């Protein structure tokens, strides 16, 4: 059953969840893919030559059910990541591109072969609940929380920011976005006001994190999103940007 919000949020019923989980575990260690209809789940063959890391829907099977499809679902196989803790449901750039081509919401679940995580959906559902979100690139990242703040606090829709989180330079993405979408620098830190975007240095890198200033606090998405005292970040502020000034 789907509930209409800013985006069409897919809410799975018990039977759909059970069918998806069973299909995901049966397919392990390969990726599973299928379509969600209004009251069912239909698995589609994954014909990709590298099924442990990718999926390609069997076109004929997909064409047979596309009329009834309200969403696409596929699984990611959890892989050990030696660098940082990344949610295994994080969509890849290819996932993001093909989601657009499908014009349907996509769900991703992840498995290590024994259990199946709850799905994440993209396009994401904007929310005015700012605190307590867990980090997932493109769904709950440091830009999306600023997007939501602008939507609900300032009634401004910031366009999506298209980038490759694992290959693009985040500082260049921020630079480009600020230029492209009419942000100007605030020269004096004392002039900061609610809604200004604070560009921070993080993890030893320049301009790779951002948050939004609100009542002497900064709202930002770390592993968990939160309001932090602005004072604590004074030494890490690289730029302050104001929308449409």
């Amino acid at each position, binding site marked *: 059953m789907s509930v209409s919000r800013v985006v069409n949020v897919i809410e799975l019923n018990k039977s759909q969840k059970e069918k998806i989980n069973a299909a995901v575990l049966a397919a392990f260690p390969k990726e599973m893919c299928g379509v969600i209809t209004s009251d069912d789940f239909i698995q589609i063959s994954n014909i990709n030559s590298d099924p442990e890391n990718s999926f390609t*829907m069997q076109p004929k099977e997909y*064409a*047979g059910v596309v*009329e009834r499809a309200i969403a696409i679902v596929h699984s*990611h196989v959890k892989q050990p*990541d030696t660098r940082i803790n990344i949610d295994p449901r994080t969509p890849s750039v290819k996932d993001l591109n093909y989601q657009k081509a499908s014009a349907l919401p996509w769900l991703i679940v992840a498995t290590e072969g024994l259990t199946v995580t709850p799905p994440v959906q993209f396009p994401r559902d904007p929310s005015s609940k700012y605190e307590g979100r867990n980090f997932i690139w493109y769904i709950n990242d440091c830009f999306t929380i600023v997007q939501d703040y602008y939507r609900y606090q300032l009634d401004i829709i910031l366009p999506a920011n298209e980038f490759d989180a694992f290959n693009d330079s985040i500082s260049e993405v921020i630079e480009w976005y600020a230029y492209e979408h009419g942000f100007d620098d605030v020269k004096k830190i004392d002039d900061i006001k609610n809604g200004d975007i604070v560009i921070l240095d993080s993890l030893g890198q320049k301009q790779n994190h951002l948050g939004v200033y609100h009542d002497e606090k900064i709202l930002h998405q770390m592993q968990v999103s939160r309001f932090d005292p602005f004072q604590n970040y004074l030494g890490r502020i690289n730029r302050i940007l104001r929308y449409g000034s």
Partner: protein
Amino acid sequence: MEVRIYGELRQQCPDVDLDVKNIQQALAGIKQVHGQAVSDHLLSNKYHYFLARESEPNKVISLTDGLLTMSFDSFDLMVIVPDMQGDVYVVAILGVALFTTTSLTVAVIVAAVINIAIALALGFLMQLLSPTPEFDSDPSEAATRSSSSLFNGAPNIREQGGSVPWCMGESNAGGVLISAGMYSEDV
């Protein structure tokens, strides 16, 4: 024949009825009805073409290149769907991680081999600089034959003029006596 295009073109391309006999005519009809941009999009992106009957829309037949001129007479529905693919984000990351790990492993092994080689070379040099005295027999017997001023009678295994390790600083553990001066009473 009704032509249904799915995916991102669906919003701008409502279903259309085209009087066409094969896929070539169908593509020409789509171009005429929906415009050049839609036609270009279909040709430049991966789409799959299927024939079906309205009564059984689930049973589709693939239109492959070999069937470009196949007659549509017995079908009344054309379904055009985009390719559906995805992958896992960690492909690139793992590549980097594996590369890093492999490089690191190789680096550690190389460093270890170099360290061993340096240690061997230094050991050899030390041996050259510290020749051991030659004894006719067991060194302990030699010690009994010649007078030794070493305290507690330990045999002297360094020949005169040979280097003797010299330790300085504070020791928090019990050590081995390597040299002892004479007591003033002995002089």
